[in-house]
């Protein structure tokens, strides 16, 4: 009886299944299968004779590799600086833009967003040129105020900070647009009430704006962390992880392990460790920033 009615419901909904079929099929082949396959590969040694089961060996080798830990530390440091500083700058600029008239708002939104539409390859090439230690624009600009020259990407000490600097300097456009949209959603009556109570601008910002922007901040923190943990193109283009592994990130290290050293099993294990880290951090951020976001 019950089974019959389920079949009936499925038959009646056949159009719905037809509509989702292409997306679901694509998803099965190009998402579900690779995820399952990565788990399988992470327990295998891959060679010309075929795959041999090696248990947790790939995980053990990855975890005992100092370069893996170095890459992990670099990635964590990169995310811990780039995400909060990026969000801070975007929030600051948004509060400056928000009170302006509409035409000025649109101008600045466009100006800040434009650099973000250019591909990471192009951005990396431009910054390689700007970072150039003898002919680069940045050292020239520093020299006009009596500073530098800085070696930028040429030295272990400065290479990773240079990449962080570049990430923070270029971006921010989409975060600003999201913040402005969220600010537009805050009821003006809240500010009017605060002003009647004689609240300062700073108090308005701390007590009204900041708490009500929390969902946006959460979204930016989660997406920013996910993005920062997967930074690849700038590393590949600009430093290849060097000098002396000072800019090797986890994704770059996975790429090298898989496609330069051809250790597919170990690379799969590393990718899964990365996935677990990203999902854990996202969950913590949800828990930490996600409280009391309803209003």
């Amino acid at each position, binding site marked *: 009886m019950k089974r019959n009615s*389920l079949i009936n*419901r*499925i038959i009646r909904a056949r*159009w*719905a299944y037809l*509509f*989702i079929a292409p*997306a679901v099929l694509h*998803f099965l082949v190009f*998402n579900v*299968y*690779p*995820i399952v*396959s*990565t788990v399988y*590969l992470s327990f295998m040694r891959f060679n010309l004779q075929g795959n041999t089961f090696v248990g947790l060996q790939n995980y053990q080798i990855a975890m005992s590799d100092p370069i893996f830990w170095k890459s992990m530390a670099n990635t964590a440091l990169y995310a811990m600086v780039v995400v909060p500083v990026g969000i801070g700058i975007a929030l600051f600029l948004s509060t*400056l*833009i928000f*009170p*302006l*008239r509409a035409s000025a*708002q*649109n101008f*600045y939104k*466009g100006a800040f*967003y*434009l*650099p973000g539409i250019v*591909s*990471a*390859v*192009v*951005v990396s*090439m*431009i910054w*390689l*040129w*700007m970072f*150039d230690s003898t*002919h680069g*624009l940045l050292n*020239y600009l520093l020299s006009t105020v009596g500073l530098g020259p800085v070696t930028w990407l040429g030295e272990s000490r400065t290479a990773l900070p240079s990449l962080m600097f570049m990430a923070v300097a*270029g971006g921010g456009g989409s975060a600003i647009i*999201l913040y402005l949209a969220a*600010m*537009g959603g805050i009821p003006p009556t809240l500010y009017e009430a605060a002003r009647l109570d004689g609240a300062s601008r700073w108090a308005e910002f701390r007590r009204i704006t900041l708490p009500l922007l929390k969902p946006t901040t959460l979204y930016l923190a989660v997406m920013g962390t*996910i993005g920062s943990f*997967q930074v*690849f193109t700038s590393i*590949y*283009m600009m430093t290849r992880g060097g000098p002396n592994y000072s800019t090797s990130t986890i*994704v770059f290290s996975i*790429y090298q392990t898989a*496609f330069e050293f051809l250790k*597919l099993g170990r*690379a799969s294990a590393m*990718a*899964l460790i990365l*996935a677990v880290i*990203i999902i854990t951090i996202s969950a913590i951020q949800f828990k930490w920033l996600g409280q009391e976001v309803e209003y």
Partner: protein
Amino acid sequence: MGRGDTETRRGGRISPFTILAYVILTLWAVWALLPLFWMISTSFKEVRAAIKIPPEWIPADPTLINYERLFARAPAFRWFANSAIVAVAHTLSMLLFCSMAGYAFAKKEFPGKTAIFWTLLSTMMIPGMVLLVPLFLLVSKMGLMNNYGGLILPGLVGAFGVFLMKQFIGTLPNELLDAARIDGASEFGVYSRVILPLSKPALAVLGIFSFMGAWNDFLWPLLITQSKDMRTLAVGLATLQQESMTDFGLLMAGSTFAAVPMIIIFFAFQKHFLKGLTIGALKG
């Protein structure tokens, strides 16, 4: 809607606070746009002018020599065509398949709907790196290495697109769909003649972001293209950079050639770009 617009709230006089805001914002805008400006400026300088210190902000003696060298040395137009083919294919297929799935998830009831939708969505959290090795093996097993099939197939549908379309189509009134059905429209007719025309704002956003994603994609085309003439523009530029490390005039010409189409698209669809972000992010 909902703009701050309190700039002149104190009796029409612009406050010092506002002037300070304009100064800071303008300085930041100059700084943010400086790399793009410098890219274009360098691309029109011959070698000695490019490395001159102090630099010429605007080339004193503009030249097309870098572009001539670019097209002589590398099949840049072929790369451009490859990028365009991949980006157009991804865009069209995303528009079709994501809107179809979004329609079913938003407006239809069927067993398994919630489970399927959330499984689809949860993969958005999985880093792309997890998929990369098996995808690479799969595509090479399918014989799709170094051809358009391999470049295009994995990106035909995206969970984000399905989510975006579901969110948008969910806001369309059911009465319109019912009216079309009463008028004798088929299921496909409802989709093509009611849903699609009404979804134009969301389709514009999805189209723009799909195109941009495909045009700028790097790691996947890097892995699966081997011959010079199958490279996309992004991968082609990367190889050009490895061959001519410090020839920045040439590299900036290539960069400009790759960036200009996106910049044109940005100015043509600026409104959709800026709106699109908020449709995707906040209506969750």
